[in-house]
């Protein structure tokens, strides 16, 4: 439906836009190997010194650990609770089902900044602390829509008769889930875990309001650092986030395909 000349123009355009799309990330990774003491692109000479600097900065290493713990906890809890909720929403029909679905998807439409502000004022009002646990809870809510979506899609994809078969042969509800449903939705659960982990690890806006001297996530640490300083240290820290994302993308591409994850193929 497109003539060859236009095809070629489009191809060049696509190439340029792809470059535009990945440019900021490439620039950061390249800059993180600079040997200079200040930001200059392209870097005149290369070294690992800013990665060494990162390891010397206790506050960045701390934040890296906080982010890892939060992301691990949030993805696990969101996937577990999301799986339970999806089972109820897909396999049962009851009063208020649609309203509940809307509620669980609502965090997608609410800007993270406002959720963070609301949670901050709520915690202060009831005298609750801001710590790793409250950040994790916030991230459970932010990642739950993704968990429920992925697991719902997985549940809708299995043949209901297989479960009914197991039950008619005398398996209890739990045994049916353990030996039939669970193995069949495992790809959905894995997608939910990986995706929730990435979303949580990258989240800035809500965490900005919930971070405190007790617990500051890595993206928040980067944000407050950039606000005050401009040196290559943050490029090294950011590159670590990029490498983590690349690792996750590799896993996702192997198991599902990035395109299919978003409904394209």
């Amino acid at each position, binding site marked *: 439906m497109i003539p060859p000349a236009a095809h070629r123009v489009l191809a060049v355009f696509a190439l340029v836009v792809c470059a535009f799309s990945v*440019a900021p990330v490439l620039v*950061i990774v390249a800059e993180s190997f600079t040997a200079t003491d200040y930001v200059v692109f392209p870097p005149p000479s290369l070294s690992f010194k800013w990665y060494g600097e990162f390891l010397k900065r206790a506050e960045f290493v701390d934040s890296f650990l906080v982010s890892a713990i939060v992301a691990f906890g949030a993805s696990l809890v969101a996937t577990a609770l999301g799986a339970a909720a999806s089972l109820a929403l897909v396999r049962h029909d009851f009063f208020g089902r649609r309203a509940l679905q809307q509620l669980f998807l609502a965090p997608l439409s609410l800007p993270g900044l406002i959720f963070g502000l609301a949670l901050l004022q709520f915690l202060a009002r009831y005298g609750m602390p801001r710590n790793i646990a409250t950040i994790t809870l916030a991230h459970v809510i932010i990642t739950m829509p993704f968990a429920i979506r992925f697991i719902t899609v997985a549940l809708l994809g299995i043949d209901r008769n297989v479960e009914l078969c197991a039950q008619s042969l005398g398996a209890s509800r739990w045994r049916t889930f353990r030996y039939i449903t669970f193995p069949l939705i495992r790809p959905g659960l894995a997608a939910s875990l990986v995706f929730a982990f990435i979303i949580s690890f990258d989240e800035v806006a809500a965490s900005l309001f919930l971070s405190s001297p007790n617990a500051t996530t890595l993206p928040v640490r980067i944000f407050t650092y950039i606000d005050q300083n401009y040196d290559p240290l943050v490029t090294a820290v950011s590159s670590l986030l990029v490498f983590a994302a690349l690792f996750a993308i590799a896993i996702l591409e192997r198991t599902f395909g990035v395109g299919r994850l978003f409904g394209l193929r």
Partner: protein
Amino acid sequence: MRLAATATEQASLPSRRPRLPVPLLLLAPALAIFLVFFVLPLGVLVVNSFHDYSRLTGIIPTFTLKNYVRILSDGFYLEIIFRTLRLAFLTSCVTLIIGYPIALYLTVASARQRAWIILLILSPLLVSVIVRTFGWLIILGPNGLVHSLFLALGLQASVPLHSEGAVIAGLANVLLPFLVLAVATSLQAIDPAVPLAAASLGAGPWRVFRLVVFPLSLPGVIAGLLIVFSLASSSFVTPALLGGADYKVMSTMIYQQALILQNWPFAAAFAVVLVLVVFLVLLVQTRLIEGGRYRVVFH
């Protein structure tokens, strides 16, 4: 209702084991967390937005419309709202102009090219916004890529950082995947026989595109534009880092009021106004096309 049904079942069949309301048990943990840590905090936010504030005593729990009146009558705050909407509008336009041709190319590219483009366009979604925005600082900032390019070309070096243009470039970069996804899904849904039929009836390629392909892709275009608009109007990191200290939009204003000036009631009122703006956009979207903000991301 479900409970009542189970109760009558049990009454009529006394021999049967009592059945637990399974959906309730499965839903309880997620529902509890959502009610306590999502619904309730939003309630607190709305309540606080009607409270007064004093620098000495903090939040004063009286009912007042003062915060809303201040936002909607002070020219300074109205300008911030207007600037936010203009930023979101311009970002949507730029994203459409660079995103639509990519989505179109995806329909004709070979399988290999498609896989690469999808990977390159979508995978930045999995890298933190903060990292992608910081990349723009290095591209546009002092001694950055643009600066070096200008020097190499012997041009007078100008640093375009801290301008609306920089914010739009950063936002377009971050939000491009959402638009491409929306448009590509609706282009994929077009039956290839339809443009072929138009061509066989004598329409040239441009006419086929203008009269057949583009109108059929409109639902995706509108969905994509509205997603980008609502995400851009509530974006925080990009305007905060690329806009500079004087470039205030609603989100950076809320941040400043809440965390630097500590005026929580005013920040809450501003947050409610921002949510209403985003909600209005979503309302238009759901009116125009069925489904929520991220529907295109999943299906």
